């Protein structure tokens, strides 16, 4: 077990952990503010990747333009999502929102399958496969940039939540909905922005990872499941908890996969989720008794 190998595992674990974090935090934010579990979260990630595919392969936009555009497109889609579907459901029946987002996920995934088929699509950016050797670890530029974008997303979300008034309002609603309403926070506006932020993060993650992996209509499934597990482990409504759990999961999965087996690595999320549900059902950093 050389140092280089260990470093490779750590770096790869962090990259994937960062994206788990972006998705899980978005999911947690939407749940915290709207009490809605977004079962279509993975599909939004897939849509972001599809958008990047169209932009780079067909519209021939550059890499940087694409990511920025797709992220903004994600915010718009989030606005539409909230306006058209979620607005009426906030705070209402948990089951109704679950089924609605489940149905939406089915439409998006199978629609994409029908239109694009399951054949994987490759996104070739202007950077191609050129890579750089950093202390024994070889990273392609696109993978490095993806890490940069993940950091941008995390910092952006942090700034939004902790340095703006509306972010403060979001945290307030996530912590205690009734009290926030009493204090005069307008839930509609807060909810809309929360959804826009969450979906924008999904789109950005999809776009950033599209050139690193391949684009298929079912690529959202694994990410959706992992983000879901992370939110359960971190605690519903705890956004910081989701970030921490996500990064840890990414690194632990890489270490387990690199030293034991990949199947065991996948089971880590499961086992952690079940342990948390049995012994600390509110999550490791859980805030209110939300679910």
């Amino acid at each position, binding site marked *: 077990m050389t140092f280089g190998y260990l470093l490779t595992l750590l770096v790869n674990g962090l990259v994937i952990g960062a994206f788990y974090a972006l998705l899980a935090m978005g999911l947690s934010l939407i749940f915290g503010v709207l009490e809605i579990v977004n079962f279509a979260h993975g599909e939004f990630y897939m849509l972001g990747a599809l958008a990047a595919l169209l932009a780079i392969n067909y519209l021939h936009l550059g890499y940087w333009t694409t990511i920025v555009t797709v992220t903004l497109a994600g915010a718009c889609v989030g606005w539409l999502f909230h306006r058209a579907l979620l607005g009426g459901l906030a705070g209402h029946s948990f089951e109704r929102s679950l089924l609605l987002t489940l*149905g939406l996920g089915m439409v998006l995934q199978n629609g994409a399958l*029908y239109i694009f088929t399951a054949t994987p699509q490759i996104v070739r950016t202007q950077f191609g496969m050129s890579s750089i050797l950093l202390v024994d670890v070889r990273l392609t530029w696109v993978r490095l940039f993806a890490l940069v974008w993940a950091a941008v997303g995390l910092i952006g979300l942090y700034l939004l939540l902790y340095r703006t008034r509306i972010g403060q309002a979001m945290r307030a609603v996530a912590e205690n909905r009734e009290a926030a309403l009493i204090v005069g926070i307008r839930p509609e506006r807060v909810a809309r922005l929360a959804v826009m932020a969450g979906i924008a993060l999904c789109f950005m993650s999809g776009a950033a990872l599209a050139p690193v992996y391949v684009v298929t209509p079912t690529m959202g499934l694994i990410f959706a499941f992992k983000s879901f597990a992370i939110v359960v482990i971190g605690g519903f409504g705890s956004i910081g908890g989701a970030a921490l759990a996500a990064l840890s999961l990414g690194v632990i999965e890489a270490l387990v996969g690199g030293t034991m087996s990949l199947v065991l690595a996948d089971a880590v999320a499961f086992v952690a*989720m079940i342990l948390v549900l049995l012994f600390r059902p509110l999550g490791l950093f859980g805030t209110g008794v939300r679910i």
Partner: protein
Amino acid sequence: MRFGALLVGIAALYALPLCGLSEYWMTVAVTACAFAVLSQGLNLVYGYGGLLSLAQVTFWGLGAYAAALLAMELGWSPWATLPVAGLVAVLAGLGVGYASLRLSRHSFAIVSLVLALLVQLVARDWQSLTRGPLGIPGLPTLRIGDVEFASAARFYWPMLSFALVALAVIWRVMRSRIGRLLLAIRQNEALAGSHGIDALAHRLLAIGLSALLSGVAGGLFAFKLTIVDPSVLDFYYTESMLIMVIIGGPGSFWGVTIAAVVFTVVPELLRLSSELRMVLYGAVLVGAMMVMPAGFGGLVVRYREKRWRARLA
């Protein structure tokens, strides 16, 4: 009068294979029976119990695997495996129910999903137990004496008989005190508790019964297909069941029964590609949640209420 109509209906159902329907349509009929049992079980747990269960297909799959393993590994007769298949499913259901209902009914939905995914993982990866992705082929068929229930037309009779019994049991529970108590708990758990009603026990009963019937149905179906593989746990079944219960109307026995048959038969008639079918189901789910969350059963109830009020006014 209504009982007479029911008897005639049942007789007609039994006579179905004699009408000269092809083996293909008999297969569809067998599937409809299975879905009727599964979706009524979900109806009991969700429509009456208020618990959204995403593990209904898991109980069905556990029953199928249990029956298959007992028949192949221990050489049990298929009939003997069925009660055990049901029992395995019940244990899983009670486990999930007890673990999550201590918290809230929302966590039941989450935990049921986790169970569903976990069992899928085990079915695929715990090779020594479940034979992995290829599954367990070569299962024996059901027999009574010399009669082998191998073809769909023949298998229809045991399947229909089981389905009728299962539906009757569920109907009876729904109409009984237990059913009413479940509805009370669903509407206001705190209030029901203050009256001394044990919410947990009643909900566990509903989950257990639903799991039992689904498990036995799964076992039966295994001996029809003669092969059990991880696809028996596919999310496709959950999606279909949800549609049947939502459109039929959660809490409406006849609504869900009719929806189960309709949504088994109509997709076969339409011959849509399975992706388009899923898009349609998804769109229907979204639409129903927006405008018709109580399904057709709910519409019927609202219509009846309106007429009742009109008569009183």
